């Protein structure tokens, strides 16, 4: 997929200080698909990485996830949640994590939107883990804002979040 110049950074946020609980990319327009790369530093507490669209905090999201930690694998599913799931198991207090999150055809106004997320916590201990999740936002509105949070926990300094726009043509 030699995407060339169609893979464009919309915005990047690097966390500094100790009071940020969420990152929001707003006024999103002009692309076909969205890709967000989240690279998080260790948190103060174990947390769930979550995504909300258009600031919707209602119970309008459902998801399925499967994950592995080197010795076992598991799958979880939930409905009527107030967030799309980026990963339910990866954010911890000692390791960095990385997530790549995809939203295809985010601007259409006729279909529910899906979030496909690939997450990893690379570690040279038993804390290493990977996950993949698929979420659906039960709303047909075009996505104009994209919020990432850690379930209300402080996002640690040194974490970076970049939203890219992809053009289909």
């Amino acid at each position: 997929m030699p995407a060339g110049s169609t893979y464009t950074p919309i915005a990047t946020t690097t966390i500094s200080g100790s009071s940020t609980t969420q990152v929001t990319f707003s006024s999103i327009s002009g692309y076909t698909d969205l890709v967000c790369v989240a690279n998080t530093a260790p948190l103060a507490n174990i947390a769930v990485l979550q995504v909300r669209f258009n600031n919707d905090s209602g119970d309008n999201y459902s998801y399925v996830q499967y994950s592995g930690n080197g010795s076992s694998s598991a799958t979880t599913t939930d409905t009527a949640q107030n967030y799309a799931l980026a990963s339910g198991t990866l954010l911890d207090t000692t390791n960095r994590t990385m997530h790549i999150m995809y939203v295809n055809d985010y601007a259409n106004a006729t279909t529910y939107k899906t979030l496909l997320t690939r997450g990893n916590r690379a570690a040279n201990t038993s804390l290493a883990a990977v996950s993949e999740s698929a979420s659906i936002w039960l709303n047909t509105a075009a996505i104009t804002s994209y919020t990432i949070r850690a379930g209300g926990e402080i996002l640690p300094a040194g974490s970076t979040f970049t939203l890219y726009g992809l053009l289909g043509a």
Partner: protein
Amino acid sequence: MANTYTLIESKILGSVVASITFSSIPQTYTDLLVKVSARSNSGPNTHDNFLIYFNGTQSNRTNLILYGINGSVGSYTSTDYFGAFNAPASTANTFGNAEFYIPNYTGSNNKSISADIVSENNASNGQDYLGAALWSDSAAITSLTIGNYNASDFAINTTAYLYGISNS
């Protein structure tokens, strides 16, 4: 429009090789992405396994894999092999696909890889992998090597593309 997803180098094999190396990687991007289409050239296996390492060293690596094989799901750790691709006993003309994403490759943190790997077979034993790898080294990544854990060569028409991704 910013050109932020840039092909650094491509490798398209016209002859078999034991490994593929991207060297002198520019230090001007934020992240790296490698896309690989690979098949093994010899040996009795249906699947061989990738090795991926940086700056010519194979030490200090920890790989974790979540896999789906024949309808079963499991997970393992390894210090070397990292997901499977097609070998001679698999369906002819079929190549495994892999994508390796390496964030912040010039930084002083330990380096991680996020991997998605598939090795399909027109019979039983198709395989799918999600991988997380850690190279416990603070050095900036200046070269990247893709090898074959099973000591076979990569076949002709194997391809590997290295992209640089900038966040601004």
